[in-house]
């Protein structure tokens, strides 16, 4: 069927004018759509803000470019468990990994040692790590006072350590920790460095660390080389997946059971974060959809009332030559302009609401989450509102189109 452009233009104009004939009625009708769209926009904005914040935090702890090679914890059966217990991450693995790729910036072994550290009559349950001089660089973690571990410390297996801010607060209060000796496993370690405090959520655990030269741990504490993990930092973010593949190949060539080794990189963390935020969006989306459907029903209700009220008007249009399709479009455009207006109102209040939410989070939860409204979110909102108008305007428009002119004009 063919609709001429003049009719189309007039129908659009009339749909627009119709909105302002009963302003209150229009406002009440579109409020459902507006609330739904506002919720959609605000949620998407805050969701995106949260996602970006987590990624930012990860960037800031230098985490995003780090690949971690570690022994798998639990195994499926005894056979596997035996293999894994026999399996170790050793100096050979370090050498192998450092030669596996030319895109590696630095590499650092880590041995986790459980236990309590003491100073005078104070004690602190921290995390003791044996590692090398590159750990700070890999974690993008700077020294506040003193110095970091050096090559010499490792070569001599010195009894020194570098501590995080929380260790300092617990053991030394506001005394200068440098030069103090802390006790760990019947041994004494001189504090040579204090690290900068990590303030943001994803990096706070670093503040609990006591870092020892890895050789010191091997010789004086564990008596053997068995790294908990080996951290590899790629030269840039973009190289991470390549380096990861190269490392994986190298590891598989040396280990009997390749399943005993797991390789983590932040790329996966980011991916799973993306999945989580997708899920979140999906559940927000379903709730929003329900609100939108309720809004759509409101529009349908108004349109049905409008069709009944304007039966004679439709009769007049038809008597002077309006075709069914012309009347259909007239009413469909009206439903669409209602829902679009609701959508626009929703977008505006959603942006405002998102900003307020971000402000509230900052004020009451002491957390900086921006409300990030993407063009995609706005386009989605516009699309949804128009779509709702079409879906719920369809039946009333069909009803209007089928009005019989003779009957319509006989009504008193």
């Amino acid at each position, binding site marked *: 069927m063919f609709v001429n452009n003049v009719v189309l233009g007039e129908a659009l104009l009339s749909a627009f004018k119709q909105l302002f004939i009963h302003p209150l009625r229009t406002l009440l009708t579109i409020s459902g759509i507006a609330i739904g769209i506002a919720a959609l926009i605000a949620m998407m904005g805050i969701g995106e803000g949260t996602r970006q914040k987590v990624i930012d935090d990860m960037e800031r702890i230098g985490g995003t470019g780090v690949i971690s090679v570690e022994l798998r914890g639990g195994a499926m059966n005894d056979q596997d468990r035996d293999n894994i217990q026999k399996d170790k991450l050793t100096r050979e693995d370090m050498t192998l990994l450092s030669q596996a790729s030319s895109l590696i910036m630095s590499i650092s072994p880590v041995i986790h040692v459980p236990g309590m550290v003491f100073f005078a009559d104070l004690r602190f349950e921290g995390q003791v790590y044996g590692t090398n001089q590159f750990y700070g660089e890999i974690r993008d973690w700077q020294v506040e006072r003193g110095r970091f571990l050096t090559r010499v410390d490792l070569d001599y297996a010195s009894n020194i350590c570098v501590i995080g801010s929380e260790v300092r607060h617990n053991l030394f209060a506001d005394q200068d920790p440098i030069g103090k000796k802390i006790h760990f496993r019947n041994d004494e370690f001189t504090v040579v460095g204090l690290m900068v405090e990590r303030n943001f959520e994803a990096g706070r655990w670093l503040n609990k660390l006591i870092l020892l030269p890895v050789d010191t741990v091997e010789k004086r504490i564990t008596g053997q080389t068995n790294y908990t993990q080996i951290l590899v930092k790629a030269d840039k973010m973009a190289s991470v997946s390549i380096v990861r593949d190269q490392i994986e190949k190298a590891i598989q060539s040396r280990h009997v059971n390749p399943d005993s080794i797991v390789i983590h990189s932040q790329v996966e963390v980011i991916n799973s974060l993306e999945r989580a935020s997708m899920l979140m969006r999906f559940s927000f989306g379903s709730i929003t959809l329900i609100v939108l459907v309720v809004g759509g029903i409101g529009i349908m209700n108004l349109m049905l009332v409008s069709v009944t009220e304007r039966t004679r008007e439709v009769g007049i249009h038809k008597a002077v*030559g309006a075709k069914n399709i012309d009347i259909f479009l007239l009413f469909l455009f009206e439903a669409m302009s209602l829902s679009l207006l609701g959508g626009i109102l929703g977008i505006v209040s959603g942006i405002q609401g998102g900003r307020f939410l971000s402000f509230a989070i900052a004020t009451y939860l002491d957390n900086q989450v921006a409300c990030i409204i993407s063009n995609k979110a706005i386009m989605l909102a516009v699309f949804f509102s128009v779509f709702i108008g079409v879906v719920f305007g369809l039946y009333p428009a069909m009803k209007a189109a089928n009005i019989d002119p003779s009957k319509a004009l006989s009504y008193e």
Partner: protein
Amino acid sequence: MNKSAVIELDNICYTYGGGKQVFALQNISLSIGSGEFVAISGPSGSGKSTLMHILGCMLTPTSGGYCLLAEEVAGRTASQMAQIRNSTIGFVFQNFNLLPRASALKNVELPLIYAGIAGRKRKARALDVLTRVGLAARVSHHPNELSGGEKQRVAIARAIVSKPKILLADEPTGNLDRATGKAIIAMLKELAADGMTIIYVSHDLEMVAEATRSIHIVDSRVVGG
């Protein structure tokens, strides 16, 4: 078949459906020639409006043949019927049937919108016919700001703006006082003089007397004319 006939009805019947059937028209056969000025009269409920709606392509007869300008109307699609209402036939109602929220000008422009005529040209043509019916000074008035006679003149302007061959008027003077009604009939007569075929309904003998031919309907049948 009459060669110069613009309207040719052959045994038209119309039955309103629903719960109780009403045989509103029974075996109506009529032939109306080009340029005729015809009055239809008859008692209330005799079927005059039903006949007018059929002639105006707003109702499809239950049975019988309707030839309009030598072409059969039966079997036309709804959109072809709309096309006929738009350009071949003008219709004037007893109760004016103007759009209440539109100015006189906008009301007269309405058929031209559906004819696909845009902008200035449409406005100029509407102004033209409004001037012709003597309402040049009232174009921006809304129906509730016009007298009955003025409303009916707007309705006539709207009916003739797309230059139809046929003008149908169902009791155009029914809601007007005698003097105003006479002026309306005079206006129709003038249009007939220009060659338009005009059929109007009236019970008023004085109005009917103005026509060059009168058709009388009683109990759904033509009894004279």
